[in-house]
């Protein structure tokens, strides 16, 4: 009997100790009266973006007593995995960076907070303009706030062009021009340097190409918008480019992970890189030669293929406990001079004319080139395509594999294109 008594006592003691250890860890016990309000913000991007964003958020934090914001910066490749896991675990961050590709997916599943009710009092973004706001709407409700606009853009190593003795292309250059110039640049250099990256597996470039033929990559009802012939023409263009030594060989291109530091241009292996305009600053920081920016090549007699889109948005999680604070933080980052000055134009050209005006005097040469570029594009683009359907991320990888198959000689462009269309249809259902 005494043994049982003692055992019970022992267990009790143990339980008290254990609960003392465990409960605070699960947040069940609030021991401190003056707990700060805790929020979390998460984004993807490089080092420069992390530095700027953290700095801006710290300023916001300091303006309010008892506010603590935990931040997290991820690489693009890991970001969506992370967010999906957090959301699935009922643990969504209060404020999250959102991409046009994923907006519909997250909004339709009820994970984001509609923001219309906060305009204009807490969210002073009416000056973004109707077009911009509409591009962040799903089912007529605003789920994202634009952090900056961008468009696809070609970056050019000016020194390599000078060395090859060819003038820099203007926005009106064609795909054939790019092929010819690339070959000349390769010829003018020694081993290990080529005119152009291999962008045959690049979905944004393929999309622009298809739109020049009047086809969107995806239709409004979420089906594949391109056919096998158009895809084959695209893959064949790059196959010819490889054969003519205009672009980097497939085994070199395969090491490009889509990040700035693994880009062919940044690694000094190519002079032409097909990218998005807001990357210009990061690329220039990592490249010793002066870079120039122009539009993607055109198709002779074709339509305008590019479009201007919200490069990133900020969204607020539907589950946030501090909706007003989260909206205020969003407003701080896109509109408040204190925040926008720190963020600069690293995420693209700000949507608010007031912010653009504020930033204009302090722009670096590269920054100005980027702003000018978007201004140049303004009347040379076609409307924003419908948001990509679920599964678009998979198709992006599929295109890259099919381009590699052609590059490594495992399939002809025609066969690879046919497979691409069939496989895409299976993915999209």
């Amino acid at each position, binding site marked *: 009997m*005494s*043994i049982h008594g*003692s*055992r019970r006592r*022992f*267990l009790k003691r*143990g339980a008290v100790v*254990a609960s003392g250890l465990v409960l605070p860890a699960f947040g069940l016990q609030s021991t401190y009266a003056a707990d700060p309000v805790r929020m979390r913000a998460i984004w993807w991007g490089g080092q420069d973006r992390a530095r700027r964003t953290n700095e801006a958020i710290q300023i916001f934090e300091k303006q309010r007593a008892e506010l603590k914001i935990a931040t997290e910066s991820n690489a693009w*490749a*890991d970001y*969506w*995995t992370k967010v*999906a*896991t957090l*959301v*699935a675990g009922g643990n969504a961050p209060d404020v999250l960076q959102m991409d046009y590709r994923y907006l519909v*997916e*997250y909004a339709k*599943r009820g*994970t984001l907070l509609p923001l219309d009710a906060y305009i204009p009092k807490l969210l002073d973004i009416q000056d973004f303009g109707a077009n911009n706001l509409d591009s962040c709407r799903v089912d007529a409700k605003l789920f994202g706030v634009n952090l900056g606009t961008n468009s696809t853009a070609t970056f050019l190593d000016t020194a390599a062009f000078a060395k090859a003795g060819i003038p820099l292309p203007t926005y009106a250059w064609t795909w054939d021009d790019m092929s010819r110039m690339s070959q000349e640049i390769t010829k003018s250099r020694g081993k*290990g340097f080529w005119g152009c990256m291999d962008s045959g597996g690049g979905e944004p470039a393929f999309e622009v190409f298809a739109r020049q033929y009047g086809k969107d990559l995806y239709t409004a009802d979420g089906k594949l918008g391109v056919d096998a012939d158009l895809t084959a023409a695209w893959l064949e263009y790059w196959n010819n480019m490889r054969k003519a030594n205009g672009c980097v*060989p*497939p*085994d*070199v291109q*395969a*090491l490009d*992970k*889509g990040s700035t530091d*693994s880009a062919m241009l940044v690694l000094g292996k190519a002079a032409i890189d097909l990218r998005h305009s807001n990357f210009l600053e990061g690329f220039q920081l990592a490249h010793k030669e002066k870079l120039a920016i122009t539009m993607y090549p055109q198709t002779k007699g074709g339509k305008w293929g590019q479009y201007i889109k919200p490069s990133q948005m900020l969204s607020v999680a539907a589950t946030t406990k501090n909706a007003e604070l989260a909206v205020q933080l969003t407003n701080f980052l896109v509109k408040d001079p204190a925040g926008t000055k720190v963020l600069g134009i690293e995420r693209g050209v700000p949507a608010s004319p007031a912010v653009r005006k504020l930033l204009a005097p302090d722009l670096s040469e590269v920054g100005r080139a980027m702003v000018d570029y978007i201004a140049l594009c303004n009347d040379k683009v076609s409307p924003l395509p419908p948001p990509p359907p*679920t*599964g678009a*991320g*998979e198709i992006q*990888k599929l295109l*890259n*594999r099919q381009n*590699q*198959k052609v590059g*490594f000689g*495992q399939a002809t462009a025609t066969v690879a294109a046919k497979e691409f269309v069939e496989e895409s249809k299976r993915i999209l259902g």
Partner: protein
Amino acid sequence: MTAAVSDSTIRLAPPARARRLRARIDTRLAGYLFLLPWLVGFFCLTLGPTLSSLYLSFTDFNLLQSPRWIGVQNYVRMFFADPRFWGAVKVTLVYVALSVPAKLLFALGVAMLLDKGIRGLTVYRALFYLPSLLGASVAIAVLWRQIFSADGVVNGVLALFGYTGPSWISTPSTAIYTLVLLSAWQFGSPMIIFLAGLRQIPQDLYEAASMDGASKWRQFRRITLPLLAPVIFFNVVLQTIDAFKAFTSAFIISGGTGGPIDSTLFYTLYLYEEGFGNFRMGYASAMAWVLLIAIAASTAAAFLTSKYWVFYEDDGKR
């Protein structure tokens, strides 16, 4: 059991004995209490998710919405309608078949060299173990890229002989072999185990054998291998399981894609991509269960065949 013993003893025991017993039981409880973190971890973090993944494998689950029961559809798709699945199976089997023998041969060779009683054994042992500690790191992946890329060290050496090599690490026909090499290079833990096994072989057997005029090779065949068999068996089982689960090296080196053209798409990498990249968590769960069964089957096969080649010194019948 404890309860039965203690109850019967209490009735007979004088107070002093009861106190001792109580102390013993307290110790036992304390033991369980110390085990608690592991038990909680096992039941909450391992068993729970494992069982729920069995349920999820019969559902369509995209992480954001609640799972929807679809029966065996995931399994049907896996076996009959997903060429990438079979591609991943093939890549993984090739990897297991090559990396396990390569790593164990390497480990055994180095262990035998170290067993010769060279000076500074502990230093060498630590040095040879080092790659296994660094193995899964980003730095090693970067190093591997440096060595096996188009302008890497390997091609630098080959260029001396007038041969221009490809970028080994990003060519579909060679990429998997660079990963096999990376795995073989991380031979540290089987080496330590081999070394311990070699130490246990009585030296007089070798002395007797060499007096009888047996060559080194014969001694290795007739003494070292049979007596080391239990250790080899242990290492084979462990390394095979590890190889089936290989993920990190391919994930980092291929940038998470398993490329080029899925040539390094390990089973687990594809599982990860399907679950977290393409939001097909139900399908990924089904894949996890198939992998579990495959590993269990291969381990069972190893145990069943072991009686034909594994000998235990203290078991006269075998």
